[in-house]
């Protein structure tokens, strides 16, 4: 299954949907099924960056170099 192949390395659900050219909702359901069978692990995102000035400055600097 293509989805599992893409899941070999960690990927965001949005990226998986983009790679597979499937609607995000479809990918979520497929992932939920895969998780039930113990085939994938779902991680929650790290959200602490929003209040970390150092990280935000890093983002701003990187964007400037685009």
């Amino acid at each position, binding site marked *: 299954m293509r989805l*599992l192949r893409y*899941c*070999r*390395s*960690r*990927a*965001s*659900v*949005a*990226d*998986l*949907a*983009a790679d597979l*050219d499937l*609607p*995000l*909702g*479809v*990918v*979520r*359901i497929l*992932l*939920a099924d*895969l*998780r039930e069978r113990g*085939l*994938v*692990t*779902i*991680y*929650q*995102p*790290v*959200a*602490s*960056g*929003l*209040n970390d*000035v150092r*990280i*935000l*400055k*890093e*983002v*701003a600097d*990187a*964007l*400037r170099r*685009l």
Partner: protein
Amino acid sequence: MPYADSDPTGDRSPIPVAIKILVAGGFGVGKTTLVSAVSEVRPLRTEEEMSEPSSLVDQLEGVERKTTTTVAMDFGRISISDDLVVYLFGTPGQKRFWFMWDELAYGALGAVVMADTRRLADCFPSIDYFERNGMPFVVAVNCFDDARRYPSETMRSALNLTDDVPLLLCDARQRSSSRDVLVALVEHAVARLSSGQHVTPAR
């Protein structure tokens, strides 16, 4: 946003910090163009289901019961480093898409509200929304070739913007111009943070 991994014993690298930025504004204002101009991935413009923004923040349980109204959404990505990624989500600003904003805004760093001087009112709902939620946002006036230019003070007053909200002119077709808009937003968020206003999930 959630990350999936088929091999829990394999990749032990830290989960990347995901910075989510929203691009809002009325229909045809240039959201897709702006996201495409800066995104490293194939600019994605897919027909998505109404429930999908929640996948950015929610667990996967229960999605089967969600409604499936179809809307268009843009998705873009900028990798800063192995452990830091910026995601851009372009979302329709029309009132009929209101329902998806709360989910989409959850955990976002801030928003770019795009405006077109010929249809300025189209961005009012977006501005209202981010003001109410206390989310950092900048207004980017997309300078269409055939649109009249106005002094920024005139536009500020037409949009009823407070002094602290940055207003920029941009050309969404230009990568450098779109990049400058994103930089302005991040700097605005930093400035707010430095003045003691924390970014809180919009809920």
